[in-house]
């Protein structure tokens, strides 16, 4: 069985050539960015396709320069950590409740429609009302404000994803624990949650990448380096009159690396997040 499958599916030379071409198209632009961050900016003009020399100057100018990338990276890390934490705790509790308790079908449908509705609203339209709302809560230009907004935007996806994993855990485990006298929260925290670890990892990774990459809310709801994130800093390079493209490439490389490393070391979870989310959507 396994043998015949190998014969019919594998070793198709034209397919291999096409796939290698597609892989090059997908990765080369990113590698081009990394390469440009490692050569003198002047070479982009004089030697467009390759430099005779390598340099780390772009990175040292980013560190010493007047762009507060260090601060922005730190802000990004805080926003990501806060949003992920909030999303996973709120999302897992809600997913557990929806998966393991008897809610009426109508209630579930209303909630699902609401969640799907949030998924299809273009984020740009939410900026003015978010601005006035954060203004009322005195949270414009704060890290906490960005955490709340990002968590609210991502929590529907996290909840739906985690519900799939809770659905797969047999309810008999819960009955057994209840007979033993465990309290409801203990059952959730000690028995059910540990069984959805792959789901938690996937949700964590996804919310983390999406918030790390987020630009629109970060640029619209902050006004200075105190809460600005790294994506805002990078976009700032392109708004300058004389673009410092060497430094820009170096800063963009730094922001691109965590995501690419995650794909390399956690491919399984990235794939699960996209395909499982798609099945639901």
């Amino acid at each position, binding site marked *: 069985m396994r043998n015949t499958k190998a014969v019919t599916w594998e070793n198709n030379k034209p397919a291999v050539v096409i796939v290698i071409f597609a892989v090059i198209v997908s990765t080369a632009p990113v590698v081009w960015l990394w390469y440009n961050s490692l050569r003198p900016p002047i070479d982009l003009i004089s030697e467009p396709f390759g430099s005779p020399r390598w340099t780390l100057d772009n990175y040292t100018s980013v560190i010493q320069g007047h762009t507060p990338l260090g601060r922005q990276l730190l802000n990004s890390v805080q926003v990501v950590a806060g949003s992920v934490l909030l999303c996973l705790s709120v999302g897992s509790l809600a997913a557990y409740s929806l998966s393991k308790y008897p809610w009426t079908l109508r209630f579930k449908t209303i909630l699902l429609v609401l969640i799907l509705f949030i998924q299809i609203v273009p984020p740009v339209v939410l900026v003015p009302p978010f601005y006035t709302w954060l203004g009322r809560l005195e949270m414009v230009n704060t890290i906490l404000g960005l955490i709340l907004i990002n968590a609210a935007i991502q929590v529907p996806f996290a909840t739906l994803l985690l519900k799939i994993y809770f659905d797969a855990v047999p309810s008999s485990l819960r009955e057994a624990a209840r007979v033993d006298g465990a309290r409801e929260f203990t059952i959730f925290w000690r028995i059910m949650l540990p069984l959805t670890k792959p789901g938690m990892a996937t949700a964590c990774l996804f919310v983390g990448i999406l918030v790390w990459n987020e630009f629109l809310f970060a640029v619209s709801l902050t006004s200075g380096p105190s809460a600005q994130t790294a994506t805002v800093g990078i976009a700032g390079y392109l708004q300058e009159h004389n673009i410092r493209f060497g430094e820009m490439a170096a800063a963009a490389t730094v922001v691109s690396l965590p995501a690419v490393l995650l794909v390399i070391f956690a491919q399984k979870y990235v*794939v699960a997040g996209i395909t499982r989310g798609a099945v639901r959507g």
Partner: protein
Amino acid sequence: MDFRVLALLPLASLLLLLVLFPLIELFRLALSTVQLEAGGLRQTYTGMDNLRTALGDQVFGVALRNTLIFVGLTTLAQILLGTALAVFVQRAGRIRRLAQSLLLWPIVVAPVVVSVVWWLILNSRIGALNAALDAVGLPEQGWLSSTLSLFAVMVVDVWHWTPVVFLIVFAAVQGADPELREAALVDGANERQVFRYITLPQILPAIGAAALIRAIGGVKTFDEVFILTGGGPGISSEIVSTFVHRLYSDQLEVGYASMVSVFTILIVVVFAVGIWALRRFFQAIGGAA
């Protein structure tokens, strides 16, 4: 209180406070004229004034048309390329896993970084593409600074999101029954026939889901267009999202921007409900047959 309610409460309050209320606020803003004053914003209820402005606004018309072109063509291109890629990767034997991993790169890279990457390739001053064209004797183009700009950001979008379609369809291809395929091959069907009559029907639901996801994602597109062209030059690559952003951030037309937003949401909802109803309809027919 019941644990089942307690567990749902944080989600409910987060969505209520940060999504539902802002949306209600959006509808309220859409029906008013908003002015900046010393103490902050002042709203005056002006009813349907903003709607009248929107319906007579030619720039909005261009933005809608560009959005339609952008969403339609990028979705189509991504579906065709992503599906082809899924079929080819499945046949790529030993490099299958490595290829899947490398093809994921564009998805996880931040749109802002994608913009920088493509700016380094497309800009007319130091762009690699123009340098390459120059080297082979072809004329240089202002990819981001001429009427080609809408096409250029569409290419960037296709590069960025084709891998999502690939992943979803690839999962379906891997889940397809290999015995059906083998039986057809043994019976003398050629590869093309096998794809058309055996594989395609099995992966069609996945292709449909991927198309819906990308169409919705297309309407949401903002970062790359905003950073690479800003909707320009002029309004040649203006899409609805950059138009809305321009209205409230540059022109401070918050009330009008909100009306355009409400209008856009309604279009997307009608579109999504339409697709859903269509799917239901086809499922009903399929069930009856």
